[in-house]
């Protein structure tokens, strides 16, 4: 029995547990796990879609550049939720443990655990890439905030609206007069 065959046979089981583990990081996760419609359940749907795609890439030792798309799909979401950085990225790691455990329980395939080095190395690369993407998402968030302030969408309060400036100028000049 070859490792790639084992990955094919166990893909669904591994991905299911991986998705379950990832979604368990949410306080109220049963809906996220249950609902399959990606539009009714964006967190669950995107996590499932992305982890499945990522698993296929990891299993076939794909070029790490290909990890970016599915990882970004997940990190965009987790980077703006209330997770510590390590918890946001952590679940990517989990597939190592899940795969080991599932293979170890299968008597015919438990010897394959010894051959997981390349797979686990690919997971390590994916985790590192996830950290980069996490940071990129955070930076993008800050840019969005700055952009909002700059473009004048942030004008309801403390804005550079001419009338508001006028108001400040008047108040300043009143103060100046008073201080004399």
């Amino acid at each position, binding site marked *: 029995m070859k490792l790639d065959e084992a990955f094919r046979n166990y893909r669904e089981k591994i991905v299911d547990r991986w998705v379950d583990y990832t979604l368990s990081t949410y306080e109220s996760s049963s809906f996220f796990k249950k609902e399959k419609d990606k539009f009714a359940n964006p967190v669950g749907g995107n996590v499932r879609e992305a982890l499945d795609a990522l698993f296929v890439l990891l299993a076939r030792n794909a070029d790490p550049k290909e990890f970016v798309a599915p990882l970004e799909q997940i990190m965009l979401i987790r980077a703006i939720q209330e997770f510590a950085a390590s918890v946001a990225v952590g679940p990517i790691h989990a597939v190592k443990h899940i795969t080991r455990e599932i293979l170890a329980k299968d008597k015919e395939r438990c010897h394959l655990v010894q051959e997981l080095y390349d797979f686990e190395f690919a997971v390590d690369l994916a985790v590192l890439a996830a950290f980069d993407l996490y940071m990129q998402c955070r930076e*993008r*968030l800050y840019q969005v*905030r700055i952009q909002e302030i700059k473009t004048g969408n942030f004008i309801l309060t403390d804005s550079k609206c001419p009338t508001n400036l006028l108001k400040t100028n008047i108040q300043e000049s009143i103060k100046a007069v008073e201080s004399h």
Partner: protein
Amino acid sequence: MAVPKLEQLSKSVVQGPSLATGAIPTKDWMDIPAIFKPGNYAYPAKQEKVEYLNSQKDLHFPNAREWNPEEDDWKLPEDWKEIILKGLKERLDKFRSLKIFMDCCVRCGACADKCHFFLGTGDPKNMPVLRAELLRSVYRNDFTLGGKILGKMAGAREMTVGVLKEWFMYSYQCTECRRCSVFCPYGIDTAEVTMMLRELLHLVGVGINWILEPASNSNRTGNHMGLQPHTFKDNVDFLADDIENLTGVKITPSFNRKGAEVLFITPSADVFAEPGLYTAMGYLLLFEHIGLDYTWSTYASEGGNFGLFTNNELMKKLNGKMYAEAKRLGVKYIIGGECGHMWRVVHQYMDTMNGPADFLEVPKSPMTGTTFKNAASTKMVHISEFTADLIKNGKLKLDKSRNAHVKATFHDSCNPARAMGLMDEPRYILDHVVDNWVEMPENTIREQTFCCGSGTGLNTDEIMELRMRSGLPRANAVKHVIDKHDVNMLSCVCAIDRATLTSLMNYWNPGCDVCGVSELVGNALVMDGENRQELDEGLRTLV
């Protein structure tokens, strides 16, 4: 062996599990306190703004002070609890709907997974049923026999400072979009529960600046920006100058002109901020194209009404200027621009709050002769209805190829869709002004539309992460049509959307712009006597 390792992996070594991590909750929801930290709450209202509002006739905004949600002491009045309970009693007596909403929920859970805040955060207190339960539990405790006798067993709990803080946290994690109420078999309007929570909080001086400052500006100068008449006029004139540069058509809008047939009112963001500016240019071009006899008002210079997000009295007061100006100027009826919550106020409350507007006529299009019977009571017609009717009667010269750079989709703004049923008119317009536009998935549009995530005065930058979370369901559906159909423009009919969806797209779907439907109309219009430059990006082209 592996399982304990996995558990270890789910916790941050540095910080321990945060609120949203650590998987299965071990405590009852009532025992989990709301914790305020930077980024999860909007800044409290400035003292001077609250003082100003409280000084105004018919308004009540007490307990102006400096306070900080992160501190234990919120500097509430000593008798805060009596104030809240008395306020709740008054509202239960005054609003029959509130009493019914408190009593009739059977906790079936149909609403639970329909809220964009829940979908983006996974926080159970963002399930509409539980958000309402925050108030309902207090109602049970003090206003029902079962609750008084059985207490917690009957889902009742005493009003405490902790409960009040929880109210503040979660009534400002609701955009009153009413998606949940679409799915409620009893028709409970959870938005109205949020409205009541916010009203009660204002009784003890708990409110946010992003709402109260625009509201006080609006009370002072007529619009959220605090623009005085000359500035408002200048801004519209600038837009007319831009139109002349782009198309060679000179437009001279009038202001406060008595005897005009129509008064036009739109959100002030349309005349001040991108991308709303282009929508306003669309209005100017459209009215010029058909020769409409209309005027702007520099006093009713705001369609939006942040009073809606505070209490009944302020909503009524801010809305009053619409009819007051219509009367002063002697117009026949009002056309309203693209706005979301403005239309909820106009369609559902204006007539009973400040009407009947007997001095106005039922809106009748001077170009097509169509009578807008749906606006027979309010005397105010939506720009999309007005435009769609013009198109249907062949009154507009349109060239779709002028929108060749646009591949659009359409976001139904919550209030026009769910509070007034405006769904087909903008789509009809899109059919006629762009070659390419596609729908997002069925369960994300029309009455099931997902909120932009930043409505009801939550479009402030200090809660940007929260806004990105609550906007995820909308952005996710937009991403789908971008991936599948190369969509590059998210069109809508709401000023808050135009501002907030822009930020939402910049995070989730960079490269997708946001526009008002009237901008696309303006792009496509073939104007008499035009000397149009090559406008590769329509009205947005830099020349």
